[in-house]
Structures are given as structure tokens and as C-alpha cells.
């Protein structure tokens, strides 16, 4: 499995480069916003990837709560951490798009606020994992993850159910998009999904190494005490 990593990394880099080319030069220019609309090809796939990672975090947390499987706990931690990185991209690229289009960097709109709350919940999850040494930490984190995941549908459907300044959904919900733009959007999402998968894989290996080191230190301290 390990030998596939460099091959997949090269393929992902090529796909990301192709997606970048498609987003900047192939996708048609939007009539009212102009080139700034192309931020959408990074902003939306990053949001979808973050939602997917938080959903995997929820499933892994539930598996951990039911079976107490440490691998499920590691998967939950990895997905939360990488999901926070993608959610950070969403919260940074959104205001950069909003400034020229809305004339403001930020507004306390439902979609924006729920996304910020989602980010804060998962940051607190990571803070809990980082600074708590208790044996109960994975269980507490799993419970927190369930509450965090409840915010994901709230963020996604907020623009369907509330009057909001955020653009309407491009897929479903009555929204429409030029098929050429949709194609570029999906290529970018695929590229970011592959990238997220590789980052999660690396982070999972690192987490396993961390647990190995922690175990070795505990054994050593037990040996010293004896």
C-alpha cells in the first residue's frame, strides 16, 4: 500500500495543475462578477470536501463509541484536522470573494455565521484532543464530534431555508449553472478530494507513529518504575 503513495501523489499533483488551468483559463467568465467569480472553483470544492471529512469524522466517532476501536478514533481525529484545514480555506476565500462583489469582507449572514460556528466546533474538538491527557478524551471528543456534525446540514441547507446574502446553491435547490462551469467545478472537486485523501493518509500514518512513540514511552516509564 505504501508504495502506491508516491504514484498517487504525482497523479494528484497533475490533476490539481489541470484543475487550476481549467479554472483560470478554460471556464467561461461570469457576466456580472467577471474573473473574481473563479474563486468559486476553489471555495466550493473546499467546502464540499470539508463537509465530507466532517461526515467521515461523525461515522468514525460513532464507530468508536459503539466498538471502542482505536483505529476509528484515529480516523475521526485525522478527518477533523484535515476538515478544519479545508474549512479554513472556505472562511478565507469567501471574504476575498465578498470584498469586490458585496463591497464588504464579512457579514453576520446565516450561511457565514453557521460556517464560522462549524469551524469553531471542530477547532475546539482539536484543542480537546491536543491538551487533554485523560483516558476519556477520545470518548468526549466523539460526543463533541456528533454535536459538530449536526451543524453540517445546518450550514448546507441554511441558504435554502433562510433569506441570505450568500449566493443560492448551484446544484439542486432551483439554482442553475453553465454546464462548462459545472464541469470545471467537478474537476476541481475531484482534484481536492484526491489531495484530501492523500493528506488524510499521511496524517493517519503520523497518528499511528505518534501512538507507537507514546506507547514506547509508557513502557519505558513502567520499566523504570519497576
Amino acid at each position, binding site marked *: 500500500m505504501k508504495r502506491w503513495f508516491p504514484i498517487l501523489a504525482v497523479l494528484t499533483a497533475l490533476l490539481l495543475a489541470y484543475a487550476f488551468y481549467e479554472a483560470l483559463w478554460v471556464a467561461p467568465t461570469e457576466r456580472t462578477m467577471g474573473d473574481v467569480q473563479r474563486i468559486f472553483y476553489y471555495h466550493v470544492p473546499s467546502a464540499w470536501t470539508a463537509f465530507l471529512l466532517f461526515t467521515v469524522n461523525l461515522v468514525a466517532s460513532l464507530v468508536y463509541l459503539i466498538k471502542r476501536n482505536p483505529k476509528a478514533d484515529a480516523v475521526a481525529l485525522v478527518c477533523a484536522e484535515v476538515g478544519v484545514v479545508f474549512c479554513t*480555506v472556505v472562511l*478565507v476565500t469567501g471574504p*476575498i470573494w465578498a470584498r469586490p462583489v458585496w463591497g464588504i469582507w464579512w457579514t453576520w449572514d446565516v450561511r457565514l455565521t453557521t460556517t464560522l460556528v462549524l469551524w469553531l466546533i471542530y477547532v475546539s474538538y482539536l484543542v480537546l484532543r491536543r491538551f487533554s491527557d485523560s483516558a476519556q478524551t477520545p470518548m468526549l471528543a466523539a460526543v463533541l464530534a456528533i454535536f459538530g456534525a449536526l451543524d453540517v446540514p445546518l450550514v448546507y441547507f441554511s441558504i435554502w431555508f433562510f433569506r441570505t446574502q450568500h449566493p443560492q446553491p448551484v446544484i439542486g435547490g432551483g439554482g442553475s449553472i453553465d454546464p462548462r462551469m459545472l464541469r470545471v467545478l467537478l474537476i476541481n472537486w475531484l482534484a481536492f478530494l484526491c*489531495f484530501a485523501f492523500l493528506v488524510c493518509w*499521511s496524517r493517519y500514518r503520523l497518528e499511528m507513529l*505518534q501512538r507507537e*512513540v507514546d506507547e*514506547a514511552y509508557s513502557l*519505558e516509564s513502567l520499566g523504570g518504575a519497576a
Partner: protein
Amino acid sequence: MKYLYAAYLATWVIHAVYLGSLVRRSSRLRQQLKDLAKAR
């Protein structure tokens, strides 16, 4: 165009900072494993 470039650049800076932190953590852990092996 400056906003577009800023958004794309910010995206890759965020990912690069995170990947950099993973590389640092990985090398620190490998060093700890080596130290533990030596101590035994």
C-alpha cells in the same frame, strides 16, 4: 484579478503551512523513535 490571485494563493499557503507542520511532526517523531531505540 488581484482578489482572484489572492484567494488562490491563500488556499495554497494554508495547505502548505499544514503540510509543513506534518513534515515537522513526522521528523520529530522519527527522532524520538531513534532515541528510544538507542536508550534500550
